[in-house]
């Protein structure tokens, strides 16, 4: 009786939760992401024993330590957005470009991340001087308006982790945890203006940047049951304490872009398994994301990731409702270079068609 009552109370509260209906924008490249994690759409939180394990899930840090200095960079290098951006910025605008922008490519985006890190067995210090995002959403040819979202983020982080239970032996039960403490400078602009405003106002007055400084933390957990039947589990709490929240007015707007699962507090959980074969190791993972840490699961953003490696050659693939990604990378002693091909809809159902884009990434080990 009490349990039934309790369940009814919980159910009644969940009915009060807001549904997502804003133009939510996500990106393959998230803060702290390198090439590998962005190609896998962060569906790699159970991938143990890779060079990017701690990048995916800081709880894997004590289980996959690495020593040295690393420099990484990943960027969107090709696609309709890049072509349109180049045409918009460097050439006079033509009628064909406008028609294409409204009908086929009403959303255009660019993203870039760079990172320098020093890592040893105990901790990792990383500095990301530039994490850049640019989103442009064009609508209504009768009276054209532009919804613009720009971000330039700088982050300094300290990460560490420890094994809570078990040991770091293969096929043994283990529970580990990790945390990252970050200081960030978050410069952003989210503007909505009409095309005709450009003729009456200085463009610098239309795009107003706001800078926020703060400290945030990521806390993660990983469970490996140590047998071949039970999958590995992970739970991550991201951007805890971040001052960058989802803007409520933007979140209910039919025209404003609202970044999601990038800067605001959220959580994600993963379930995965590594399969060793004579032809190499396959790692599989299913990741889901929870809005506002503990509100509702955004099933549309759930992603399935697969990673196959054979010595120096690796293949990545990830699949979700709005992203289909395939990538390859080659690793040498110093360099790890990769390229991925994405078919993506950063704004989900509000984007008329998938954008085919290419991303490149470089990791340098010093």
């Amino acid at each position, binding site marked *: 009786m009490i349990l039934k*009552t309790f369940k*009814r*109370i919980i159910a*009644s*509260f969940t*009915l*009060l939760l*807001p*549904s997502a*209906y*804003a133009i939510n924008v996500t990106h393959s490249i998230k803060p702290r992401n390198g090439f590998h994690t962005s190609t896998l759409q962060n569906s790699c939180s159970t991938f143990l024993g890779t060079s990017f394990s701690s990048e995916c899930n800081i709880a894997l840090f004590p289980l996959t330590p690495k020593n040295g200095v690393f420099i990484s960079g990943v960027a969107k290098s090709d696609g309709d957005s890049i072509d349109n951006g180049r045409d*918009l*910025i*460097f*050439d*006079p*605008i033509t*009628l064909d470009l*406008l*028609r294409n922008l*409204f*009908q086929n490519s*009403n959303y255009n985006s660019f993203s870039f991340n760079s990172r320098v890190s020093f890592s040893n067995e105990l901790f990792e210090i990383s500095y990301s001087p530039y994490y850049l995002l640019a989103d442009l959403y064009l*609508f*209504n*040819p*009768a*009276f*054209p*308006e532009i919804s613009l979202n720009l971000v330039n983020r700088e982050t300094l982080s300290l990460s560490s982790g420890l094994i809570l239970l078990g040991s770091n032996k293969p096929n043994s039960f283990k529970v580990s945890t990790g945390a990252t403490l970050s200081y960030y400078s978050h410069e952003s602009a989210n503007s*909505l203006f*009409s*095309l*005709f405003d*450009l*003729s009456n106002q*200085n*463009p610098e007055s239309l795009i107003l940047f706001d800078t926020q400084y703060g400290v945030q933390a990521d806390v993660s957990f990983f469970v490996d049951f140590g047998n071949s039947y039970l999958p590995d589990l992970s739970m991550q709490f991201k951007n805890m304490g971040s001052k960058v929240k989802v803007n409520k007015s933007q979140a*209910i*707007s*039919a*025209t404003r872009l609202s970044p999601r699962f990038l800067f605001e507090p959220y959580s994600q959980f993963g379930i995965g398994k590594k399969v060793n074969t004579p032809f190499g190791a396959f790692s599989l993972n299913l990741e889901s994301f929870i809005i506002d840490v503990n509100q509702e699961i955004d099933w549309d953003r759930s992603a399935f990731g697969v990673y196959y490696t054979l010595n120096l050659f690796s293949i990545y693939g990830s699949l979700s409702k709005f992203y289909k990604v395939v990538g390859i990378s080659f690793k040498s002693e110093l360099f790890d270079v990769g390229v991925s091909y994405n078919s993506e809809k950063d704004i989900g159902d*509000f984007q*008329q068609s998938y954008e085919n884009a290419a991303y490149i990434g470089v990791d340098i080990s010093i």
Partner: protein
Amino acid sequence: MLKRFLIIFIWGSLLLSCGGKEGQKSIEDSENLKHGIIAALNQENSDLALSLAISGQERFPNEKDFSYYRAQALSLKANIDIYSLFPLVKMQLFDIAINEWEKANEFEERRRQNTNLSILGEGSLDERYEETDIIQAKIDLLKSLSKEDLDSLENEWHLETFYTYGEGTEPDPKHCYIYYEAKNKHTPKGKSFYSSIWISNDNECDSLTDEEKLELVKKDSPPFKINDWTIYQLNERLDRVKNRKSSERYIKAGFALFDGLPILRSIPTITREELTFLKDALSSLEEVKDSRGLSPRLKDNSTKQIGLIGAYLITFSLASSIDLDQVRQPLDFACKINAGKIIDNYPFMRIGFKSLLSVGIETEFYLKNKKNFDYIQEQMKLAPENLTDEQKKAFINDIENFQEDNC
């Protein structure tokens, strides 16, 4: 007791959650509908956009957003969108690439400085005080002064003496003109009163001192006293300036139209039915503009779009009433005008002016050209919605007579 409390709590939560769920669902439905409208607009599907907007108006009568989107759909249906207006927009916005925005700002600055070359334009903000206003102010000031104050006005005198010629060729030194120039602080700049008096002196004119000459001038009482003469001069100057301003206005209008000939040629033409869609769109936008509690974005967009459509209606009416291919010089605008077509387009020109003027108030452009704006607004109040047959005939006769005399 606890059980009762729990039951009340549970039912209360469920009821609240149902109400909350309904409210959230309503907002979600409204936003989803707006997304659908925007998607339809982007695809240039004006019929779908219009039907969705009308559905939104019926389902959510308190949300004026759907009136705004209805206006967008109607504007698209009338083919007045970024594609058809692209040649006009391009000339303003996209002459250069965006990476040369510094040059765009210079272009915009030049355009602003050339406001006085527009049809309505008169001058820059610094010249807000018209020369006519200054002159009128001086006249009013002088008229308001008492005789004593006027007489006490400090005058400057400059005297010359000329000999007059007698019946023969020899000058008579006892008969001369005293030629003088007089002005005071109210004398228009660069202007003075010149006159002369004839005297017959017992002594030779040259023996007179300046003071004696001045006394003779004052005694002789010139046709105008300085104050009356000053007011007279000022009034004459005022008339000259007004006439010049009036001529300048027509010349400016002619040149502005001539300068805008490429724009006039590129104005998209639309059918009568499409014009009625535009009229309908305007009334929706007016409704949005005047709504209370609406987001500033929609009010601002509505205001701008009303101005855009109004300007389009005016230029379209002009362009379709003149044989633009025959225009070779500014005067041709008057000579090649088709009076019948002007009359046909009169209702749309009237709506265009009313719309443009309604959103022009409180803008910087209005402040710079207030007199013209106010004059046209007054004329618009008198302008009938439809011209009578007599008015049409009179207008046609005026145009034809002008063309006969001047073309």
